């Protein structure tokens, strides 16, 4: 144990060293943030490289293959070889392309994906770069700028495939951004703050993960997050079988790899928000009691960091898992899911959560029942309140499903139905079943 403390002592040591050269304010607000940003950017860039390796390996295992095996042991150096290949390739720009927009679109994509990392609480204390009190709004706002880059790239390439990819991505953004934002509101009712650190603290003081209160919200957020990242099964903007490569058809070399980095970084961001909002962030039972309460502060931060990363990897595995399980949706199915299922269910979820909170608050003090502990750090419930809330969450799952299937069962397969109606109206008397053979219909 003492060895571990020695291992994590350098954080305080560096702090003291910096204080010899700078004042306290400069160290706290300039030097440390720079160190944190540097670390996060390096680690995320490294992650992006190794996410490709992970994805190739996992997809290979799911198809009973081995994946990359030649470069280094178990192919571990493959991402480095790929990176060298991409960096040394020709940076080709089409003659008819809109040159400047074509230049800058990849940078917008990367910046939008990386800037969001600044508000994500990777761990308590020095694990957060900055704790903005509108953190969640910031995440939603900036991550939708990333889609602008795809539209610009698709437009400036001056190619029909790229343009179609860009158009599809813009339509997809409009349909799924709404559901994504609405699904978060249910969780925010419990946290009572928009700061992402505050959300984690609300879960830590409540000793619960919000996914138990908000199963509907979690599902909506996951689906719309996958759609937001243009990952399979929602990868219509870069559908290989239809659009060559979608919006980055004309890109090559370094600029193409920037789009790739942006995609994987955006995946990390969405999974990080999912982990923070629904899976408790860096909070895990017993960690606080074993480390911070006994005075091992830095150990606490680092253990929390690893817990966060483990949860993140779990959510990211879900991305790969879904990619190799589901085929790509048709375009009208994509719009169906967005507008007919996700947005209404997010709205129903908000209503049901509000009703559940009102009921739980009303039950507090009714016939000696005690449901609410405090309202200081989010909505803290007692064991009874938690049980009630989890029950209401599961009930919400069933109610939302039943309600939506009742609403949508007539409008399912909308296109097919209209086609059928057109076929039926030709020479077929109203109210009688159509006959499949054409000969009898003509008589």
């Amino acid at each position, binding site marked *: 144990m003492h060895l571990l403390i020695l291992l994590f002592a350098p954080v305080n040591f560096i702090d003291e060293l910096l204080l010899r050269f700078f004042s306290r304010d400069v160290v706290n607000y300039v030097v440390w943030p720079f160190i944190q940003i540097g670390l996060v950017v390096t680690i995320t860039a490294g992650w992006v490289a190794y996410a490709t390796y992970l994805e190739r390996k996992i997809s290979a295992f*799911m198809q009973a293959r081995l994946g990359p095996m030649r470069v280094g042991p178990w192919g571990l150096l493959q991402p480095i070889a790929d990176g060298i290949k991409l960096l040394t390739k020709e940076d080709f720009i089409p003659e008819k392309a809109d040159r400047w927009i074509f230049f800058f679109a990849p940078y917008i994509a990367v910046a939008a994906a990386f800037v969001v990392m600044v508000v994500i609480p990777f761990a308590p204390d020095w694990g957060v770069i900055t704790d903005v009190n509108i953190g969640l709004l910031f995440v939603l706002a900036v991550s939708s700028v990333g889609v602008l880059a795809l539209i610009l790239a698709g437009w400036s390439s001056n190619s029909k495939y790229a343009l179609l990819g860009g158009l599809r991505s813009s339509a997809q953004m409009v349909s799924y951004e709404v559901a994504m934002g609405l699904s978060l509101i249910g969780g925010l009712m419990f946290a009572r703050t928009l700061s992402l650190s505050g959300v984690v603290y609300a879960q830590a003081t409540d000793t619960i993960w919000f996914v138990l209160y908000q199963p509907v919200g979690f599902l909506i957020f996951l689906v719309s997050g996958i759609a937001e990242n243009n990952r399979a099964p929602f990868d219509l903007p870069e559908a290989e079988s239809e659009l060559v490569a979608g919006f980055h058809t004309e890109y090559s070399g370094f600029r193409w790899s920037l789009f790739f980095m942006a995609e994987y970084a955006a995946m990390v961001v969405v999974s990080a928000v999912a982990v923070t909002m629904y899976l408790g962030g860096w909070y895990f039972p017993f960690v606080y009691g074993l480390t911070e309460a006994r005075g091992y502060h830095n150990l606490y931060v680092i253990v929390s960091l690893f817990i966060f990363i483990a949860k993140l990897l779990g959510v990211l595995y879900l991305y790969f898992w879904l990619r190799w399980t589901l085929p790509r949706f048709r375009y009208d199915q994509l719009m169906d899911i967005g507008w007919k299922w996700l947005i209404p269910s997010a709205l129903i979820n908000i209503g049901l959560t509000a009703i559940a909170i009102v009921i739980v608050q009303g039950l507090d003090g009714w016939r000696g029942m005690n449901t609410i502990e405090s309202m200081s750090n989010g909505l803290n419930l007692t064991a009874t309140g938690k049980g009630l809330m989890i029950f209401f969450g599961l009930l919400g799952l069933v109610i939302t499903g039943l309600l939506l299937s009742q609403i949508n069962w007539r409008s399912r397969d909308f296109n097919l139905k209209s086609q059928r109606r057109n076929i039926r109206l030709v020479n077929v008397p109203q109210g009688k079943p159509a006959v499949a053979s054409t000969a009898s219909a003509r008589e």
Partner: protein
Amino acid sequence: MPLVKVPKPKFIDKVKRFFLSDLLKGLGLTLKYNIGALTDRDSVAGKGIYTEQYPKVRPEVAPRFHGAPRLNMDPETHETLCIACNLCALACPEDCIDVLAMDVEIVVAGKPRRKKVLDEFIFDTSRCMFCALCQEACPTSCLELTQDFELATYSRAGFVWNREMLEQGRETVKYLS
């Protein structure tokens, strides 16, 4: 009423659809493959991974596989077993074997005699269809089709094997790890 007859879903089908049972089934299948690959990773054509690491690990061919030809030697004296009888060349349906013999003077029981021995053996693998009729015709089990399957060369001339290549075997590139 649609033109195509669609069976009306039963209640149990509706329940299955409501709980996304098909999606869960698919996820279970991919997870099963993933776990199988992780726990059983060295197996080939087993439950886990089907990939053969070819240049690194050579696949085992079937016992009756016919590959590169070879002229066998007497294991003790290291002289060729071929008696230049030309039966293999006669048996070959593709006419790809040429046996060139020569006479040597030997002394048998004090009298000078002439003996027919093998001088050169030409085997054209580009025309060979690996039927192994030559192998069956050989009375001394000298000519044999081995299990070696790496026969590719850079030129047409490389397909014609002479006696030395047939006896020593051809050198193939060995890959390191």
